[in-house]
């Protein structure tokens, strides 16, 4: 029942947000498509925190690599349809509010473990809530889309980095001779 209430609230907020971009708090991203996401400091910090919780890179040294928030801000627009870009932003906005509501605190106070629990629940939750309105269903779908995307892009951000490619995937521009058959 509590979850339903929260979703209802989120659905109303999501509608308001689309209509009144001026009335958002600084963590909320204005919903618009086909423009590179311009993230303010608060949004970048929060998105970095989400990504870091999903895939901690604290002890991985990135020497040459752009931040996750920079990566995400270009890739979301670059690879997605207009509809998917909007779903991503809506999902982010609703997820941000949802987390705050659930843990009853500001996002800056949310601990990595809480983000993990939230993501585990969303990504593991296959059952749609019963008796939800189309608006509430949409909010759920957008959150799920955002969570999937941000997890996928966190993995990509790591696996396409120089460090990961060279050290883990053993990438070499000139790999040397081809050995057709050897012991595995």
């Amino acid at each position: 029942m509590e979850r339903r209430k929260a979703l209802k609230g989120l659905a109303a907020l999501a509608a308001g947000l689309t209509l009144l971009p001026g009335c958002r708090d600084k963590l909320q991203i204005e919903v618009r498509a086909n423009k590179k996401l311009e993230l303010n400091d608060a949004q970048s910090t929060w998105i970095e925190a989400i990504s870091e919780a999903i895939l901690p890179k604290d002890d991985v040294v990135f020497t040459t690599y752009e931040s996750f928030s920079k990566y995400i801000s270009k890739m979301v627009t670059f690879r997605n349809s207009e509809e998917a870009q909007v779903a991503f932003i809506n999902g982010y906005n609703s997820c941000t509010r949802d987390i705050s509501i659930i843990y009853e605190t500001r996002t800056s106070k949310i601990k990595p473990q809480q983000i993990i629990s939230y993501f585990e629940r969303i990504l593991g939750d296959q059952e749609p809530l019963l008796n939800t309105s189309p608006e509430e269903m949409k909010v759920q779908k957008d959150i799920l889309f955002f969570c999937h995307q941000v997890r996928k892009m966190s993995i990509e951000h790591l696996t396409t980095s120089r460090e990961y490619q060279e050290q883990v995937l053993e990438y070499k521009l000139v790999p040397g001779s081809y050995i057709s058959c050897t012991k595995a």
Partner: protein
Amino acid sequence: MQNSNKYDAIVIGAGMSGGWSAKELCERGLKTLLVERGRDVKHIKDYPTTNLKPWEFEYRGEISRAEKEANPSIARCYAYREDNKHFFVKDMEHPYIQDEEFDWIRGYQVGGKSLMWARQTQRWSDFDFEGPLRDGFAVDWPIRYKDLAPWYSYVEKFAGISGNKDGLDTLPDGEFLPALDLNCVEKHFQSSLKRNYSDRHLIYGRCAHITEQREIFRQQGRGLCLNRTECERGCPFGGYFNANSTTIPWAAKTGNLTLRPNAILLSIIYSDKENKAIGVRVIDSESKEITEYFAKLIFLNAGALNTLLIMLNSTSERFPNGIGNDNGALGKYVAFHNYRSRINAICEDFGDRKSVGKRPTSGYIPRFRNVYRQETGFLRGYAAGFSAARYSQRTKDGIGQELKEHLFAPSELGPWVVNSHMMGETVPKATNRVYLDPQKTDEWGMPLLHISVKYDDNDERMIRDFQDQFTDMFEKAGFVDIKVSDDHRAPGLDIHEMGGARMGNDPNTSILNRWHQVHSCKNIIVTDGACMTSTSTQNPSLTYMAMAARAANHAVDELEKGAIL
């Protein structure tokens, strides 16, 4: 007539085949103008991505969704990526009219598509040249294997082709550099085919890569292929053949070449008085200034469909329907290769073996259907690629520390995955054709080309046969989890468009004679895919190159004898 605009020969199109025409003509001492509609691309200097690492690409190798939506045809081409997209023509910038869906993949620059090609190079045999006569389609080829064999050798030695002498009558051997090895699963399949069939063979795909240094490659400034498999960006070592590293600089070294990039050939100028082509009309792609150039010989190498566009647009009192088009066959009998179907499976054996590193080609299964006799309910046959590989796998499950541990854990080798794709011959038909739009033109005033080309029942039957036969071959080899697919791709994506100005002995039914000369205008010579009477199954570029070298040398011989003028 201005003297500075006069040459002995003009070659139109500086790609795979045009590079050969220019090289041969220049070496024979002809002052040659090479007209290319695209920009100049200098070997190495103009390969901007050649040494970039995956993480240095802004979008990690991807093409944006917006760009794919704006250019749906090239977006479907496997080779079109962030690292080489600058070599592909954007659909939207150079429109054409698809009466039937047709993905026309083009490269407008010095080097043409030789920059991005997959470098597979097989000779034709007489089973291919005799096909139309035996099976009663198209017209008889006016040449046979013996006519082209010395020129295949000539081209192979200069370009550098690796392969094994396999001794197959369906796929003649050539002048090969050493081949790389098949891996253990590929060898297993090779012996399974040998055991179970008398007519099916897996060989190492012959390809245009230098695997052993030779003096001729040193003179060209080319080095060994180091197996980077980033060829489509342009190779900094010149490890694979393209016109930019090989034929065009060689032609330039003679001092006889004038390369004119950014020059779009609009039409060939025919003189009714002199009864021959006397020159060409060219528009500068940037300034739009029109210039006329004059020569005794004109070689068309603009890439099959563009050559047809130029010919159809070259009208005169003598040729109101396009130059050489006395019989109405120009633009008709276009054909291509049927690449629609694939098959893949798992090989559960050889779990203790793996291969290491990369190689720029894979296995090849020459055509075996309907070779010695008609044995199926469809005409002609298909060749197929074949490869086996094991991929490193890491689970990407979990969130947080668990996910991280998975991503950094040692990888596990997956099973051997095997796959094959068909390369089917399509039968040329008058209804598969291109023609000019009577009104619409591009921004340089060239009429837009209508492409009206599609599959037929013969192709559908061939697809089913490929799937049945390969399922059988895979089962006999013990492969499991066999899956066949038909991606229903439109024609064009095979990038082997051919025909439209076919060769033949009879001027009433063909456009070109056995020396690639237009029957009714002998100083125009066509040696790109437009000349093809039929398509067989082999990747065609090696044949275009051999044809270009043969025809150019013959034309110079004739010129020297005074026979062409």
